[in-house]
């Protein structure tokens, strides 16, 4: 199946595009370093979410042209950014007051594992590696919606959606929605509920690639990545 899967599955940009469709106009959004940052590129036309970065900016914009960087104007990934009109600067305690106080509408992060009880592991692969947590533990416990972008399985083909995480946790019961390379899955009352799947993939095939039971509650829609603004 893995050769099939490679041709079938969404690219990271397609996953990011799908996640962007759920971001409301005016939402306050934190995008994790790396892959989740791409969500900003697929903002739905007509909507103006406000992006938050841990190091103290609201309403920053895309990277400046090469050579135009100002190194006091960076995001949490230490990459140069720009400002949109209506931006604000604030210190780190105020920045995490926004996070911890539940003022963010959405936080979108990457994942190593997501459990059906909403537990997330995304900060440490376990013993041996040098630990580095950043703002992930704050974000996952307190944003109104915590969404995860992820390949549905690891490079070895192991499920990333599991019954219980075996890797060190980032947060407990925190994930509300998973945008995977194969499906959109919600966490509801300790269960995975399948909302969308690739049309070319059967439920049983998807279940076989998932480490915990996929529940269905109403319609399972086709996971479609197309239309204006969709990555090609």
């Amino acid at each position, binding site marked *: 199946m893995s050769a099939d899967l490679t041709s079938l599955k969404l690219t990271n940009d397609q996953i990011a595009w799908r996640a962007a469709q759920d971001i409301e*106009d*005016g939402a*306050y959004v934190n995008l994790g370093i790396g892959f989740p940052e791409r969500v900003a590129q697929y903002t739905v036309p007509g909507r*103006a979410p*406000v992006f*938050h970065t841990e190091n103290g*900016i*609201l*309403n920053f914009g895309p990277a400046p042209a090469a050579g135009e960087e100002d190194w006091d104007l960076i995001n949490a990934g230490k990459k140069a950014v720009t*400002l*949109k*009109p*209506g*931006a*604000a*600067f*604030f210190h780190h*305690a*105020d920045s*995490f*007051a*926004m*996070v*911890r*106080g*539940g*003022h*963010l509408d959405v936080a979108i992060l990457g994942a190593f594992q997501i459990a059906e009880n909403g537990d997330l592991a995304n900060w440490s692969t376990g013993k041996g590696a040098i630990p580095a947590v950043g703002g992930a533990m704050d974000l996952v416990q*307190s944003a109104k919606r915590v969404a995860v972008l992820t390949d549905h399985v690891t490079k070895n083909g192991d499920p990333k959606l599991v019954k219980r995480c075996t890797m060190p946790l980032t947060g407990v019961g925190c994930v509300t929605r998973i945008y995977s390379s194969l499906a959109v899955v919600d966490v509801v009352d300790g269960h995975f509920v399948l909302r969308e799947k690739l049309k070319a993939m059967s439920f049983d095939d998807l279940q076989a690639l998932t480490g915990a039971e996929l529940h269905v509650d109403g319609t399972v829609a086709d996971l479609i990545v197309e239309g204006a603004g969709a990555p090609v």
Partner: protein
Amino acid sequence: MDKTVPSLADAIAPIGDGAVVMIAGFGGSGAPVELIHALIDKGPKNLTVINNNAGNGHVGIAAMIEQGMVSKIVCSFPRSSDPVAFNTAFTAGTLELEVVPQGTLAERIRAAGAGIPAFYTATSYGTELAEGKPVEEFDGKHYVRERWLRADFALIKADTADTMGNLTYRMAGRNFNPIMAMAADCTIVQATRIVEPGGIPPEQVVTPGIFTDRIVEIAAPVQEETLIREGAVYP
């Protein structure tokens, strides 16, 4: 994103009976008098009001009390130059009072905005205001545990707002405004002027727009202190 609303009545429309309402200001400084008076016009009952004081004269919070809208007040200092509204209701037993040390009040509000459900402070340790509260020793000193203080609504007086809800304040009118703006589910702002996004330099924003919900422009706000000196009565 445009958080402006056309009128005071629109601004305070979501506030209904039984709401917990933070009202910023210290005495009259930074007090959102026009929002308070609009709320009196609407007339919700059984409100809990959180403010540093308990009203003065016959305008603002004092007028809310006189209109019978307030069932409980949380404050640090209910005395004022003309406390008759508070004293009458308190003495009659129709107004419950929770007195909180001023710094604890501020920190409890800030804690609510910052997602800190409880914290420890040396303030009030060994006093009757600490009775019934958990006490803990850290590094040989005793501290009292205090809970966050949240609200359904906050009424805020800003100097400049942009349409996205970024705010600045005028002089010491800042006081409780920035922290109350953080601590309420719905933060309602009267601003002396509303500008387009970009109209406030990003380094000069005091309250970022993420903390605010509804903004109405009141171009020439009254000062509560001036009203009181004139003997004004609302309504």
